[in-house]
């Protein structure tokens, strides 16, 4: 009996020890599984935080290249390497996050950002000016101040602004939006001066017109050749057609301290400026202003033929005023003042302003493009992607002094 009891106790003890260990192992394994996922997530979060902090440093100081080394974060650490050699003119950030045994790498490729990427940019938009139902901005847009919307305007690509204000309805942001972004309005005088200098260097018919006064230009294409007619006031008779290659051999035409009125269809490269001199002169309706009298179009439509080489850059010190609806305007348009509709069109039933290219305006006031919900003009801005890499000659597409993310690997 005594021996049997001892055997029984020993057997029971062995069984308990065996199962106890097995159950303990199971518990440990389950815990390891949870820890594995936790470590993976933590190392990813730390690497991501490192990349975000490095991006922030570069956005604060675009020349920051120091990187981070073994920065302790959340019981782990991260290091960020800043590489400017692998990709020309770009910055590659490699953030390595380490937590316990786990390592995660995040790579971010940044590129200096340029104004050429915007379909529409405005330094300041009156808070009463709204993007309305029927407006479509088919390309990136930035507004320094408040972007107000009414109804359901559509933004097909990224929208950045100081503040988004939705007066009514629900805007559609297909590329997302970001508030709190400020991009200083670019200087333009160098570009306008360069167009004038290039125009003066030509031995053309009339490369630079000096005001006061008006210069009216009408382009047309016949047999694949661009011709120009011109006159000096609205009631004057158009001149005979002159080949653009004769009128302005380099395609640069400048109006100084006067009004530029332009319309028509052309092929090739044309750069226009309506500037003021000296640059401290305040533009007005008769000095430094530009008037788009009717359709201003490329002969070869880049929406149909993406390889089109037709290109227009228009730089205006004063307002760019649109005087016809509906209208299509092809090109990159810059105004150091307002983009606006002629006042008589603002209360008419709504029609379309279609711009294929880009529009940079310093200001847009509350009723510049119409009143209420259904008067004036609807925008259809179609970004011409050729502008990003091959902008018009002498056009003010400087860097925005910040970077944009080209790719984010995590």
């Amino acid at each position: 009996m005594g021996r049997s009891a001892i055997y029984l106790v020993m057997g029971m003890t062995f069984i308990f020890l065996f199962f106890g260990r097995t159950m303990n192992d199971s518990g440990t394994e389950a815990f390891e599984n949870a820890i594995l996922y936790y470590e993976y997530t933590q190392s990813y979060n730390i690497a991501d935080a490192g990349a975000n902090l490095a991006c922030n440093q570069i956005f604060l100081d675009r020349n920051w290249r120091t990187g981070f080394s073994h920065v302790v974060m959340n019981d782990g650490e991260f290091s960020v390497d800043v590489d400017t050699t692998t990709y020309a003119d770009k910055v590659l950030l490699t953030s390595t996050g380490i937590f316990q045994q786990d390592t995660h790498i995040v790579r971010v490729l940044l590129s200096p950002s340029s104004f050429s990427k915007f379909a529409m940019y405005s330094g300041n938009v009156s808070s009463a000016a709204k993007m309305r139902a029927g407006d479509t901005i088919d390309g990136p847009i930035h507004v320094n101040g408040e972007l107000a919307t009414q109804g359901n305007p559509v933004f097909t690509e990224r929208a950045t602004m100081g503040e988004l204000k939705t007066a009514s309805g629900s805007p559609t942001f297909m590329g997302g939006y970001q508030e709190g972004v400020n991009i200083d309005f670019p200087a333009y005088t160098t570009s306008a001066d360069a167009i004038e200098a290039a125009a003066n260097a030509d031995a053309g018919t009339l490369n630079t017109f000096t005001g006061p006064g008006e210069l009216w230009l009408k382009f047309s294409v016949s047999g694949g050749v661009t011709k120009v007619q011109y006159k000096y006031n609205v009631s004057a008779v158009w001149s005979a057609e002159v080949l653009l290659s004769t009128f302005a051999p380099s395609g640069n035409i400048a109006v100084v301290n006067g009004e530029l009125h332009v319309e028509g269809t052309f092929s090739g490269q044309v750069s226009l400026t309506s500037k003021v001199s000296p640059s401290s002169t305040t533009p007005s309706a008769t000095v430094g202003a530009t008037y788009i009298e009717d359709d201003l179009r490329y002969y070869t439509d880049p929406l149909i033929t993406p390889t089109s080489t037709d290109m227009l850059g228009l730089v205006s010190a004063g307002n760019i005023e649109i005087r016809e609806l509906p209208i299509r305007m092809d090109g990159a348009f810059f105004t150091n003042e307002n983009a606006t509709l002629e006042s008589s069109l603002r209360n008419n039933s709504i029609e379309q302003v279609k711009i294929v290219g880009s529009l940079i305006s310093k200001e847009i006031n509350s009723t510049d493009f119409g009143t209420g919900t259904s008067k004036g003009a609807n925008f259809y801005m179609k970004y011409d992607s050729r502008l990003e890499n091959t902008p018009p000659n002498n056009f003010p597409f400087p860097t925005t002094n910040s970077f944009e993310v080209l790719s984010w690997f995590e």
Partner: protein
Amino acid sequence: MGSQTILDLIASSLVFGSLMLIALRLNGGTMENVQAFREDILVQQNLVAVSQLLEYDFRKIAYCKNYTVISSPTDAIRYADTSKIVFWTDFPTTTQPYGDGVLDSMTYYVGPTSELSVTPNPYDRLLYRVENDATPIGVNMGVTTFNMKYYDALHAELSTPVDSCQLIQYMQITIQVEHPVKWTKYYNTATYDTVYQSAFWRQVRLVAKNLNNR
């Protein structure tokens, strides 16, 4: 051998027998617990594997090492429904861990429950992860729920299938993994029905950073 000895033997046999029965019952109970633990781990490991894979792939929506290949990242999601998504990405290779710069197509979806009718669990499905135009091969990870919701920039939920995938800015992914076999010790405390061991994971707002980086 006297009568006292016989009584001792009978008593000791009863005691031994009782102890043996207790030991066997204990053995059975412990075995069941150990096995249940093991199956729990299996379910949880499957869930971790699936969620890590999804997070890894979904964070690379619209990513391409050669960024010029994706001129408009908002076009990267090609199809989006509650249980299926197709998007552009760039697969890493052994020699190029950050992608080879060639655009690839990734498809995720779950098959019908009938594909796994051989398992006792009537709700489990095959999870498919298809690279480019490869032949779809499903894996049985015990996925019973694979649900995605899509939100626009203003955090409004989009109806599915999403008509205009450009609108997608955020995603919610829900996965539930269940064991293929029902264990008797798991009960629904409300109905006292036995249930399948399960684990649940939800990524409340997944943001693919490349979707709107430009």
